[in-house]
């Protein structure tokens, strides 16, 4: 896009050790003797307890871009953030940030319980690299954002958790960084403040500075990021648009869920969206799926469920079996099926998934492919998660118009 990259990650490797490190002098002496004797491990090799937390990861972020990083727990997301913010140093490779990095990570870490809110604002601001004069000019803004005007001269130890987190977020959100790094901090305070925090983040993201965002809330990545990376066990498994990466992420987590694959008569080959993207809220979308029914199937084992999941929360929005939808598969052989769904849901990112469910073990035994659907605001005007097809009429009215209105 525009300008030189402000965040550069070049072939970065990071090694960690499992288990206990030497942490007393008593343990050090034997280890030091071994190293002097020339039997210590070289830097690039892995000794028994070591592993690569990040392997050969490269990316760049330019002004105007926002990179989302997703992946399962332990994939190396937090390690990358720590490398970016210079808390960790790479074993191999180079990572560089041009300018001041603002990090929305663990936002109240520098607070001292005995100091007042006011004193802590200056302390935390300095820790984040702000000048005293800078904090002074933004002080009122920070305090009113955190909504703790009345308690600003109270020691922080008397604050509630929510107040603490709000103040911490407000400080971090008021540094004007050249580069922004965000780790899931969006769950700050109550619902209303979360929305406020999210709006603030969105504002910062769209101000043109380069952003790196790590989140499990896929919707955040879908709505805030211009690019995305999918990490798996320290490596980049996919890079592309947020939607592509989210899809790949869901795919891989579905596959790992059904790792204990039972044999089933039914297999799925492909699932695709036939309508054009994006789907508008309240509109119908067409899907085409194909699969194969193997030998020895009965009516029950040929049934499967269709599910729609909201990616932001991971919750099921809708689930129904194919037979409930009026489709029954042939007893044997390949098949193709058209599915039509009306997305009476709020705008957001959803996925349609297929699975064969075993009633006895109460688990999925076959997970089919999934497809991501972006739903945008459309004809239906409502807020909430689902449109409940409301119908309302007035049953009592003034005497002149007896019978009510339709």
């Amino acid at each position, binding site marked *: 896009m525009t300008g030189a990259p402000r965040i550069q990650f*070049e*072939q970065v*490797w990071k090694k*960690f050790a499992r288990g206990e*490190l*030497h*942490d*007393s*002098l*008593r343990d*050090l002496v034997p280890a030091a003797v071994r190293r002097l004797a020339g039997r210590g491990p070289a830097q*690039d*090799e*892995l000794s028994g307890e070591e592993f*690569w937390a990040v*392997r050969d990861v490269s990316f760049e972020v330019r002004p105007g871009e926002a990179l989302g990083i997703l992946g399962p727990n332990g994939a190396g997301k937090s390690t990358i953030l*720590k490398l970016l*913010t*210079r*808390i*960790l*140093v790479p074993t*191999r*490779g*180079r990572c560089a940030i041009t300018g001041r*990095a603002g*990090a929305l*990570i*663990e936002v109240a*870490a*520098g607070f*001292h319980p*005995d*100091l007042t809110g006011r*004193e802590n604002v*200056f*302390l935390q601001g*300095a*820790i*984040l*690299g*702000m*000048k*005293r004069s800078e904090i002074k000019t933004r002080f009122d803004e920070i305090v009113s954002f955190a909504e703790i005007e009345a308690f600003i001269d109270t020691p922080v130890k008397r604050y509630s958790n929510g107040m603490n987190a709000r103040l911490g977020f407000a400080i971090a959100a008021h540094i004007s960084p050249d580069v922004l790094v965000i780790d899931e901090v969006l769950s700050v305070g109550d619902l209303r403040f979360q929305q406020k925090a999210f709006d603030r983040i969105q504002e910062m993201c769209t101000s043109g500075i380069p952003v790196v965002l790590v989140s499990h809330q896929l919707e955040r990545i879908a709505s805030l990021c211009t690019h995305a990376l999918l990490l798996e066990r320290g490596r980049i498994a996919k890079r592309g648009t947020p939607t592509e990466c989210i899809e790949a992420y869901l795919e891989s987590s579905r596959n790992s869920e059904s790792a204990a694959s039972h044999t089933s008569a039914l297999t799925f080959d492909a699932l695709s969206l036939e309508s054009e993207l994006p789907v508008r809220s309240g509109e119908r979308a067409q899907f085409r799926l194909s699969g194969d029914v193997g030998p020895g199937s009965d009516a029950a084992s040929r049934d499967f469920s269709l599910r729609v999941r909201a990616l932001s929360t991971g919750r099921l929005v809708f689930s129904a079996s194919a037979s409930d939808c009026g489709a029954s598969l042939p007893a044997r052989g390949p098949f193709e099926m058209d599915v039509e769904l009306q997305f009476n849901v709020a705008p957001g990112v959803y996925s349609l998934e297929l699975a064969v469910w075993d009633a006895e073990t109460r688990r999925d035994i076959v997970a089919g492919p999934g497809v991501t659907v972006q739903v945008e605001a459309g004809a239906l005007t409502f807020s909430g998660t689902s449109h409940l097809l409301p119908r309302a009429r007035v049953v009592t009215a003034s005497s002149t118009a007896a019978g009510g209105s339709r």
Partner: protein
Amino acid sequence: MSDLVLTRDLPAPRRHSLWSDLREIAVDELWKYRELLYELTLRDVRIRYKQAVMGFAWAILMPALIVAAGTLVRFAMAYMGGGHVARDVIAGMAVKALPWAFFVGAIGFATSSLTGNLPLVSKIYFPREVLPLSATFAQSFDSTIGAITVGIALPLLGIHYGLAVLWAPLLAALIFCVTAGAALFLGCANLFFRDVKYIVQVMLTFGIFFTPVFFEPRMFGPLGARLMMLNPLAPLLEGLRLSVVEGHNLLQPLVIMGKKGAVVAWSPWYLAYGAAWAVLGLVVSMLVFHRTEGKFAEYV
């Protein structure tokens, strides 16, 4: 393992040179983060005086106790020797108790400054040097109050300040450097090896017997005096006493004739020795700190 396929064109690790490292510490870290150093020092001072009954008396409590203990020791020695405790002996102890209390306080706080701020060290980047250094600065705030008190009290004990008192600021600066160096080194060591703090506690408790606070090195005879002066703090403390209390110019040697021969109570070389420790100790500690800093977040 196949994980080990490292390509050849990886960017080479950055080369360290002594000079570039020192410049990095001074310019990129300490100067850029001077406001943080100030805020953290302010934090430590505020916490110490918040909700404290003693208030500023706290700053002189420790040196006062050291002087009281020293007076007791010297009284016993004088009693056995059939003399009495001169006022300038008490004055000399007061002058040396202050920097010793500073050293003990600063090292005590600095050793656990990194491990005591774990959430910070593992979550947010800033040059970690500021943690042990702010502990040292916070302690020098106390010591400044103590120094003003002692400065007012000495004339009451009959001490007249001569020109030699001008050595005091230089010696104070050197003592600060020795302390800051030790603070950085021990803070960093304690992060990697948690038993360092216990060793430090023991050293600080018994250190007063190996440092000339209660006594003067010359009391140990010609060889004993030299051995005592090997302690990096000894020449600095003794120099402070000689210049402030005895009005001795530190560029002149001082030889005292005792029963068992001449004892070198002072030599300009002692000053050079103390200064060398202060400067080299600080530089080496900074380098050690700087080069291990990248591992802090992994070890905590």
